[in-house]
C-alpha cells in the first residue's frame, strides 16, 4: 500500500485511507540535523527541521504529502519540501478561525482534498469506503482514549500515527483487554499527577522519564491525547449508510464537524477562549503542569505566559521544558526530578 505523509493532526486521515493510501504522520527523530541546514534556517522548530532532514536523507518513501495550514513554519515547509523531493505535495487550507462561520469553508476544502487524493490514486472515493474509514478511525480513537484512561502507552500511540490503523487497532484492543484483567492497576497510581502540555514530542522515552520521576501523567500534546480527542457523536455516522444518495456529502459533513470539534490547539483561533479553558479544565485534577514546548514554536510560546499565570492562579506549579532535538534525556531527567522535589 502506498503511503501519504502528513504533519499536522488537523489532517483528515480518513480521506487518505479511503483513497487507498496509508496515512503516516511525519515526525522528527532524535538526531542532529545536517542536510536540512541548507534549506531551513536554524530558527525553525526541530519538528520542521527534523522532518525535512529525514526526507532529504531519503528515509521517507511516500507517494505524496499533505501539508495542513497551521503555523507559518509548516506553511513555508510545503514549498521547500516540494522543491527537494519527487513526492506530490498538497496544501490543505484548514481554517485558522474555528468559528461557526468557517465550517462551510472547511467543507469546501475537504472536497478539494478529496479530489486531489482521487487524482493521486486514480479512482473515485466511494461513500462506502469513506464511511468505513471514518468508522475505523473512530474506533481507533475510542480505544486509545479508553486505554489512556487506564494506562497511557506512548509507544502504541506513536504506532497509531505511523502504522497501519487496522493493525494498531487490534493491538490496542488486545492491550486494553490485557490491562482490564490486571487488578493492581489502580493501586499503581502514583501520588503526584502532572499534566504535560505542548506541541510535538515524538519520543515516548521522555514521557516515560516523567512518569519514572514519580508522576502519574496525563497529557495535552499534539503527539499525545490531542491525536485522538474529538468531541463528536459517532451516532451520526452509523445512520449514514441508509441514505445512499447523499452519503458522500453526509460523510464530508461529518468530517467537517469532527475536525472542528478536535481537541483545541494553539495554532487556531477559537471563540470564548476554548483553548485555554480546555487546558485549565484538564489541569483541575493535577498537581503540576509541565510545558513541553519546542523551541521556536510561536503558537505555543505566545500562549505560555498567560496560560501559566492562569494555572498558577489555580494553585498549580509549573515547569517549562524547551526542547530542541536531539534532546539529552539525562538533562531533562535532572530538571524533572528537581521539579518533583519542589512539590
Amino acid at each position, binding site marked *: 500500500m502506498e503511503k501519504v505523509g502528513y504533519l499536522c493532526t488537523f489532517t483528515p486521515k480518513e480521506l487518505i485511507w479511503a483513497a487507498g493510501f496509508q496515512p503516516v504522520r511525519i515526525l522528527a527523530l532524535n538526531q542532529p540535523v545536517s542536510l536540512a541546514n*541548507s*534549506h*531551513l*534556517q536554524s*530558527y*525553525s522548530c526541530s519538528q520542521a527541521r527534523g522532518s525535512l532532514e529525514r526526507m532529504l536523507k531519503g528515509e521517507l518513501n511516500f507517494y505524496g504529502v499533505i501539508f495542513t*495550514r*497551521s*503555523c*507559518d*513554519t509548516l*506553511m*513555508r*515547509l*510545503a*514549498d*521547500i519540501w516540494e*522543491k527537494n523531493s519527487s513526492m506530490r505535495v498538497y*496544501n490543505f*487550507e484548514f*481554517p*485558522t*478561525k474555528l468559528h461557526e*462561520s*468557517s465550517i*462551510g*469553508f472547511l467543507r*469546501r*476544502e475537504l472536497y*478539494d482534498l478529496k479530489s486531489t487524493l482521487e487524482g493521486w490514486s486514480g479512482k473515485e472515493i466511494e461513500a462506502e469506503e469513506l464511511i468505513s474509514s471514518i468508522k475505523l478511525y473512530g474506533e481507533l480513537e475510542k480505544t486509545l482514549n479508553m486505554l489512556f484512561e487506564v494506562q497511557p502507552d506512548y509507544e502504541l500511540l506513536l504506532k497509531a500515527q505511523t502504522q497501519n490503523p487496522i493493525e494498531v487497532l487490534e493491538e490496542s484492543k488486545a492491550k486494553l483487554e490485557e490491562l482490564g484483567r490486571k487488578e493492581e492497576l489502580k493501586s499503581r497510581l502514583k501520588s503526584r499527577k502532572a499534566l504535560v502540555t505542548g506541541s510535538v514530542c515524538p519520543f515516548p522515552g521522555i514521557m516515560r522519564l516523567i512518569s519514572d520521576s514519580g508522576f502519574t501523567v496525563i497529557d495535552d500534546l499534539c503527539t499525545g491525547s490531542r491525536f485522538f480527542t474529538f468531541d463528536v457523536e459517532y451516532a451520526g455516522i452509523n445512520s449514514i449508510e441508509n441514505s445512499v444518495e447523499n452519503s458522500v456529502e453526509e460523510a464530508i459533513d461529518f468530517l467537517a464537524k469532527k475536525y472542528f470539534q478536535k481537541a483545541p490547539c*494553539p*495554532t487556531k*483561533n477559537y471563540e470564548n477562549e476554548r483553548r485555554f479553558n480546555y487546558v485549565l479544565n484538564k489541569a483541575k485534577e493535577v498537581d503540576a503542569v509541565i510545558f513541553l514546548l519546542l*523551541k*521556536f514554536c*510561536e*503558537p505555543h*510560546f*505566545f*500562549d*505560555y*505566559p*498567560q496560560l*501559566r499565570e492562569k494555572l498558577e492562579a489555580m494553585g498549580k506549579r509549573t515547569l517549562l521544558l*524547551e526542547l530542541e532535538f536531539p534532546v539529552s534525556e539525562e538533562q531533562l531527567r535532572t530538571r524533572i526530578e528537581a521539579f518533583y522535589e519542589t512539590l
Partner: protein
Amino acid sequence: MESETKSEGKPSKSKIKKLKATKRMQDIMLGYYLQGRQAERVGWVTSGAPVEFLYAMDIYPVYPENHGALIGASKQGPYFSSFAEEKGFSQDLCSYARCDLGCIFSETSPVGGLPRPDFLLACNNICNTVVKWYEVVGRIYKAPVFLLDIPFVRKELKESYIDYVENQLYDFIGFLEKTYDTEFDEGKFKNVLRLSIEGVQSYGDVLSMGKHKPSPLTCFDAFLNMAPIVCLRGTEVPSIFYAEMRQELESRIKQGIFAVDDEKYRLLWDNIPVWYRMRWLSEFFIEKKACMVADTYTNAWTALIDINKKNPIRSLAETYIGIYLNIGLDLMVDAINELIDKFDVDGVIIHSNRSCKPYSFGQYEIQRMLEVPSVIIEADMTDSRAFSESQVETRLEAFLETI
C-alpha cells in the same frame, strides 16, 4: 521614524543625501500618533489588514508593527522587548510583538504608549504570528479580536478563498456596526477606497523612481517614508505626501543629484529592514557605490484594488489575499524577478530575519531561483542582539566583489 544619528556619530560627514520628504513624513507621523490620544474609536490592526473599513467608520487605526519599526529605528528594541521577556514571552518570538507587549507592560514607548483598543483586527495574510500576538493583547485589554482569516495561496487563488474572505468582510462590517452602534456608510466607504487606491498609486510612483539610472532614491528612503501608506492608507494624506516626494525626486534627477555618487551596482533588498542599522547599511553601500534601488517589502504595499469591478468588497478580498507574504515560493520568485527586471538589478541582498518566519523560511530556495546573484545576511528587524556587524560586513564585501 527616527533615523539613527546620535550613537553612530559623525552625522556631518555622512554621505547620505536626506530627502526633505523625510522630515515632512516625521511631522505627519507625529500628528498621526498625537491624533491617537484624542481618538474616540480605536482599533488595532495588522499591517496587511483592510484598514479601509476602519477609516470609513471614523475609527482610529493603531499599527503596532509600525510602532515596532519606530522602536527598532530608535534602537530601543532590546529595551522594550525585555519587559515582555520578563513576563515569560520567549526571546524567539517576533520582535515587533515583543516590543509591543513590552510597551504595554512598561506603560510607555517612544511615543508615550499606544491608545487602548476597543477591538483588534488581526489579518493573517502576513503571518499567523499576529493571530497569537493579538490574542495576547486582547486578553490584556479585555478587547475582542476579530480574525480575518486569509487562506494561503501556495499555487493558485481559488474562488472558494475569495468567497470565504468576502463573507468574513461582511461579518466584520456587522461586527463594527455592533461595536459602535452605527450603521456602515457605503458612500463613505467608497470614498475611502478611492483614496486608498490613489495613495497606493502615488506610493507606487515614488518607488518606481528607482528605475532611473542612476537612481534618485534608495530603498532606505522608501523604508523611512513608508509609514503613511501603511498607517494612513484611505485618507488624503498619502497621495499628497507621495506626490510631493515624487516631485522632489524628479527635481533631483533634473539637477543630476543621485542617491549614490557614481552608482556602480544596483541592488535589491529582500525582507523587512534592519531598523537599527539603517544608517550603517546606507553608508556602507554608498561607500561601495552600490545603490539599493528597490526592495520586496515596500513594494508589497503597491497591490491595487480593482474598484471598477462590480463588487468592491469582493475585489478588496481578492487584493488582500494575493499580497506578497501570502503566496507560495514560486509566486514570490516571480514577483522578485519582476522587480529585478523592472529596476535592472545586479544582485539581491536577502535579510534572513529571525523574527519573521513567513518572510524568511524558503529564502534558501528562493536564492536558487533568482535571475541574479544574491547573498543572505542574518539579522533581526528590531532586536540588535541578533546582529553581528562584522559578520554582515564581511559577507556583503565578499558578495560585492563577485558581481
